[in-house]
């Protein structure tokens, strides 16, 4: 009988084990995800001697199964018997680190890095380091690329002889035949440099960096840029000029735009790493060149960095550098031929006003904002409008409002609905900054016009916008300006517009409060319950459900209940359904 009892508890595990090799990927995946359950049932001994050898050889599976397996094994230490036996996990992870699929390999390396910490220093040298060396000298590039990510975790914890070997292996991989391995080495160079002693950074890493940064493959060179940033951060200031700067200068002028793009993209990190002196002497001219680059992608990346770069300039010379070196380039970019460059610039240019202060902003930046507000591409104008708050703090928005209005009106009527949608989203922000008077005078009519846009997404956004405006300007303003117009649409001949009224009420009832809702909105909603279009009627039911909580109980009982009961007997199925739903939600039954 004891045996039979055992069956019951064994059965679910037996199913899981069998499903490790089920034909259905999903079942295999489920099983792998519950690998810890299987291991727990087998015990540490059998996990080590049976389960892990089996897993080591099952690397023919689908990527998603292998990915899950690689992840599981990273937290398997307890299940094989603790840190003492953690090295048993190395064989399956080693084979996973050689598969062709990058995500699986990366996950295996991640797990290996994780369990490397659980190795004792002795185990690390006896088990882990030999694995890294095997991978590093593997026949296939897949294993060698994986090795690149493992040097960094074992280096700090091994003896100096092993350290020397590890450095040697890394050097070898940096000059590997295949670009894939050189790329992997290039991308891990910075990380590896961090764990090396400073002397070795100078004697080993710098030559490798220089070599990778002048590799024949563009894709290797561009990864060296990032490594250069990390290395620069490690070196004392006095060594930077000799050891790193020549290479970085060369990268900023590389023949390949992709490398220059990378420099532009990493410019703020670079600036931080090399410090103020080199920034002034080297990076400013380099940045100017990137802003004037012949490739639009590079200019875009550089334009994105304009604000951050200027912000981090040394304070004593910040204004002079911006005014004499950066601003002239920025002025040219404002009339760039490429829309992406202009729109990247438009998204950061407003930020310069806080750095330059009121007078400079009015004199130098304002003309540029105005040009961009009239740009032919909507995205450029939108980016300016979306960042108005920065300027508002410095010079107030009034200076801009003359140009702002035509720009907003044009965007509001743009033929592309996505553009209209984007400008709607900035309306509450604009309203806040321009003030209620300006808004009523100039923008209110736009907001109402969107309610009858022929694209649903715009009408929907417009209702949401009204709600946000009321949150800003208050219920009283709502009652005077927008509620009458919204309610007026209830008599429109187009049923879509009548429905918009209901949607607006849904959105506004809460912010407007009980009084306005009961007094002004509810009668209109109730009247619409006899609309001839079923869609309107069932939206009345939904609307009542929505605004119910705002109303007091007498209004609910006296006015809402009879109407919902009538709708519950409607001929249309959907009307009935929503009416009944509203009755039950509002507990009116």
């Amino acid at each position, binding site marked *: 009988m004891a*045996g*039979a009892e*055992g*069956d019951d508890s*064994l*059965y679910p*595990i*037996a*199913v899981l*084990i*069998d499903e*490790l*090799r089920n034909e259905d990927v999903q079942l295999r995946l489920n099983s792998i995800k519950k690998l810890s359950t299987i291991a727990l*049932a*087998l015990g540490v001994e*059998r996990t080590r001697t*049976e*389960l892990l050898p*089996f897993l080591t*050889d*099952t690397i*023919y599976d689908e990527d998603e199964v292998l990915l899950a397996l690689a992840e599981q094994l990273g937290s398997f230490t307890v299940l094989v018997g603790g840190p003492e036996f953690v090295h048993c996990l190395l064989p399956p992870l080693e084979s996973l680190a*050689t*598969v*062709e*699929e*990058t995500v699986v390999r990366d996950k295996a390396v991640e797990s290996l890095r994780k369990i490397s910490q659980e190795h004792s220093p002795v185990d690390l040298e006896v088990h882990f380091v030999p694995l890294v060396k095997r991978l590093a000298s593997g026949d*296939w*590039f*897949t*294993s060698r690329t994986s090795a690149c990510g493992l040097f960094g975790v074992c280096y700090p914890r091994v003896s100096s002889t092993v350290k020397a070997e590890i450095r040697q292996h890394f050097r070898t991989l940096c000059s590997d035949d*295949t*670009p*894939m391995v050189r*790329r992997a080495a290039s991308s891990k160079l910075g990380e590896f440099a961090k764990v090396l002693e400073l002397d070795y950074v100078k004697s080993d890493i710098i030559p490798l960096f220089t070599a990778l940064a002048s590799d*024949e*493959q*563009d*894709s290797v060179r561009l990864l060296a840029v990032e490594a250069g940033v990390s290395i620069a951060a490690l070196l004392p200031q006095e060594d930077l000029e000799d050891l790193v700067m020549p290479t970085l200068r060369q990268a900023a002028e*590389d*023949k*390949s*735009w*992709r490398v220059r793009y990378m420099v532009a993209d990493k410019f703020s990190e670079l600036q931080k790493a090399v410090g103020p002196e080199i920034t002034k002497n080297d990076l400013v001219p380099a940045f100017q060149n990137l802003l004037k680059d*012949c*490739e*639009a*992608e590079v200019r875009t990346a550089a334009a994105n960095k304009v604000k951050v770069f200027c912000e981090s300039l040394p304070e004593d010379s910040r204004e002079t550098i911006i005014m004499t070196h950066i601003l002239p380039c920025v002025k040219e970019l404002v009339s760039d031929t490429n829309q992406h460059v202009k729109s990247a610039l438009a998204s950061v240019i407003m930020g310069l006003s806080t750095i330059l202060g009121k007078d400079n902003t009015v004199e130098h930046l304002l003309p540029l904002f105005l040009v961009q507000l009239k740009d032919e591409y909507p995205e450029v104008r939108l980016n300016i409008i979306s960042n108005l708050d920065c300027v508002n703090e410095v010079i107030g928005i009034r200076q801009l409002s003359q140009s702002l209005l035509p720009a907003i009106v044009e965007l509001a009527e743009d033929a592309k609905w996505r553009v209209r949608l984007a400008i709607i989203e900035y309306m509450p922000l604009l309203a806040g900054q321009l003030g209620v008077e300006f808004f009523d005078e100039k923008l209110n009519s736009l907001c109402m016009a969107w309610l009858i846009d022929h694209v649903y997404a715009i009408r929907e956004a417009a209702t949401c916008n009204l709600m946000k405006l009321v949150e800003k300007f208050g219920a009283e303003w709502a009652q005077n300006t927008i509620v009458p117009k919204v309610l007026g649409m209830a008599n429109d001949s187009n049923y879509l517009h009548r429905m918009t009224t209901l949607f607006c009420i849904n959105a506004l009832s809460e912010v407007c409060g009980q009084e306005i809702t009961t007094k002004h909105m509810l009668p209109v909603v109730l009247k619409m319950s006899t609309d001839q279009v079923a869609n309107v009627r069932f939206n009345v039911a939904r609307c009542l459900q929505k605004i119910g909580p705002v109303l007091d109980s007498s209004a609910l009982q006296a006015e809402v209940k009879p109407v919902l009961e009538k709708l519950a007997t409607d001929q249309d199925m959907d009307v009935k359904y929503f009416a009944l739903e509203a009755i039950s939600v509002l507990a009116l039954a």
Partner: protein
Amino acid sequence: MSSGCLFVLRGFLCLIIKDGNLSLFLRLLVPCSSPYEIYLFFNLVCDPADVISTVEFNQTGEFLATGDKGGRVVIFQREPQGEYNVYSTFQSHEPEFDYLKSLEIEEKINKIRWLPPHNPAHFLLSTNDKTVKLWKVSEKDKRAEGYNLRDEEGRLKDLSTITTLQVPVLRPMDLLVEASPRRVFANAHAYHINSISVNSDCETYLSADDLRINLWHLNITDRSFNIVDLKPENMEDLSEVITVAEFHPHHCHLLAFSSSTGTTRLCDMRARALCDQHAKLFEEAVDPSRRSFFSEIVSSVSDVKFSHSGRYLLTRDYLTVKVWDLNMENKPVETYQVHDYLQTKLCSLYESDCIFDKFECTWNGTDSVIMTGAYNNYFRMFDRASLRDVTLEASREVCKRRAVLQPRRVCVGKKRKETDVSVDSLDFRKKILHTAWHPKENIIAIAASNNLYIFQDRLTPNGHHNMPEIQSAPPK
């Protein structure tokens, strides 16, 4: 080798001159159990789906892949004895229907390109008109055994007999070769894809259609970058289409593409993200006095191949193959006539649409010999050093297993020899469009309709990598 009769075609193909004629010693290796085999033995009407549409050796030459009109890919592996046998066959593409454009999409494989070796598995890209696929061909020689709840025949076990858990164990089994699709790169081409080419950085590749070239990352299927766009604003202004595009073998930033106007352009991807402006334009001025209605059609470039050294470009147009030095744009350094005798036949070739046939061309491993196809199941080889050439025939009648190929001669007018063939008796339905040359050895693969012929230099009989004894230095 007997004395006095020896001539080496730049070290590789061994030719012997007899009575002023060239005879090439090649053996035919018939692939066993291939889908093409049956047609080698029975004179059946050929199924159009079996017509081979592309042939490609992998980087080591150990494998040879063919694609056909039926969307199948067949991979041959070289046996230790030197013969190529079928290794794997799989259906790469299926016929599809584009409902938006109301267009049928053929399953025909337009191009196959092998990826550099990753791991023990082999990877290749195959494409039809619209979709590129990345395939993995891998071997499996182990099988898991031992279920908990079932016996080996799959019958459920009596639950009461289960007292311990059993972990499956792997046992050796017969070798199983599996092909699995790893990536599908779709929806990026409005026109028909004519070329794919893997970059030397091994992480990107290009796909080219009639008007555009796109750049892909091998790991990313939902995004590609357009690097060349020839589509004019108004399609009525269309004056040329892209016929072929290929990456430079070593320089990751260089790519060449050719057009229907007979030009080949070299682009430098370092200079700009969009390569619409070329770095170099290879074009030969046409003698205005020889211009005719057919000039532009016959000058359309049907294939472009970089030499293995990366120094030269080989282009094929309807009547010639040309070798261009990348450093000289205004004229080719070498021009070889493939079938000059067709000059007078262009009118009838136009009527039969033959004039639009796209012949491919190929270099041998050391760039010393050029091969390209012709009509009547003939293919041509040109030795660049000696300027000698030979015409050979790949047909069932002459290619007996292990037979040595005899050179052919096409004559205009009166026959000079018994074996000569008159231009008028050439069969224009039998054409050799697709050829490939082993990257290291003198082994060539020739696709003629539904037949695949693999010939080997007679001097390397056992297929080992022994070079011919007499060899001159490869061109630098």
